[in-house]
């Protein structure tokens, strides 16, 4: 069994997570640019205007230190390092200028996917595997975090740095994303909204130890293991 990040406690309201986790697809300008002209062609026909969101359901939730199973039908998994925005106050139709007032704090999300290159249909089979959303190791209150749009993000595999980005270069900053999302769906205290994964997310095989580090938020460690191997 995976540990549930809802058991994480932190010192500001709402003190724990709700277990509702939303992801944001293609919010990193270099990732959007890497699609090139394909974004204008079928099946997409045009770049997305609204935020493209998805859900990491409760079966995906895992904690710091949990093993992540690499399913038998996927030789490697994509490690999606994302800033996790933890909602502190009910957020409905918030203006960008007030958006950060609704944030309790930030955490690290490892949004793990079975790699897929087509984003036309919601990819539940690729995004909702058991244990594919480790969150942690803690929630850091907003007051203790600097500019959330300029934090260093690093991914290490077996101690080697494999990916180094920041939370910047986003189509939508943290505040803008909160404004655009809460225009049509209310976010509740303890919900997590991911800012989104950067371009060229690393792919990792079973047997490897993954560490995601976000400046000021600590390090989230998880080992990838083969399906069926006793843990």
């Amino acid at each position: 069994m995976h540990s549930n990040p809802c058991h994480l406690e932190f010192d500001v309201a709402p003190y724990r997570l709700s277990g509702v986790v939303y992801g944001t697809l293609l919010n990193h300008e270099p990732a959007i640019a890497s699609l090139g002209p394909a974004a204008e062609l079928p099946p997409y026909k045009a770049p997305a205007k609204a935020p493209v969101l998805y859900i990491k359901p409760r079966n995906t939730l895992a904690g710091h230190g949990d093993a992540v199973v690499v399913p038998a039908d996927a030789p490697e998994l994509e490690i999606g390092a994302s800033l996790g925005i933890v909602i502190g106050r009910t957020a409905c139709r918030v203006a960008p200028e007030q958006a950060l007032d609704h944030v309790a704090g930030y955490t690290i999300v490892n949004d793990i996917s079975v790699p897929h290159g087509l984003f036309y249909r919601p990819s539940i089979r690729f995004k909702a595997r058991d244990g594919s959303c480790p969150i942690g190791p803690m929630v850091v209150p907003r007051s203790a975090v600097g500019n959330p749009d300029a934090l260093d993000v690093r991914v290490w595999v077996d101690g080697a740095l494999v990916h180094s980005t920041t939370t910047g270069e986003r189509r939508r900053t943290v505040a803008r994303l909160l404004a655009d999302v809460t225009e049509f769906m209310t976010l509740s205290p303890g919900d997590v909204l991911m800012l989104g994964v950067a371009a060229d997310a690393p792919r990792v095989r079973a047997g490897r130890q993954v560490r995601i580090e976000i400046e000021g938020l600590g390090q989230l460690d998880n080992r990838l293991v083969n399906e069926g191997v006793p843990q």
Partner: protein
Amino acid sequence: MKKARVAYAGAIHEATPHGEQIRLADGRVLEQGEVVWLPPFEVGTIIALGLNYADHLKELSGELTVTAKDEPLVFLKGPGALIGHNGQTRRPADVAFMHYECELAVVIGKTARGVKKAEALQHVAGYTVCNDYAIRDYLENWYRPNLRVKNRDTCTVLGPWFVDAADVPDPHDLQLRTLVNGQVVQQGHTGNMVNDIAELIEYLSSFMTLRCGDVILTGTPEGVVNVHVGDEVVTEIDGIGRLVNTIVGDEAFGR
């Protein structure tokens, strides 16, 4: 056995039918209109099917490139979209095509992982009715249909009753229909699902663990038409329930 969750006199209660009235677990008998109806069970992961009725697939074929042979079109919804029976759903002023979808909702009752079709129905606790609104104006071709279309506040209506699986001898022999202001606008039969309930549980549990309270919204048949502010929309499945909803405008939400 049918049960509902309602808010009344300062608390949330379980309620059962009592003739035309309802009876709270504590013995109080009330008119149906005296209570606020909530989704009838504690809702876990909300799993929705698109294009799961052969007739609806045909209806939308002009704008689609899929066929019934493709992998099931599955998307997820968050808890914020949910409302109960007799609720209000917002229609934004700037949209041209917003429609209801009458769906049989299948509630999981026992953890399911790697379940085969033959055993799948043993994992079903019961059923309810869902009206899963969509606003087609907001469709874009990225993780389509995306949350702006299908995960809007007030746009997923569940209820009124949770009906035990034991009381539904064949979930694939149910008539479903939608009435707008009393006129039948959508009719179908749960026997026409492209992927039936057992196949859906086998498919989903092949890659994710389903748990008690997770709900599968099994898709809608043909006959989706635009709704307007003031419309009363009734989605109804024989033996399961009659779910009433009213469309309201932006003014009700201070917009």
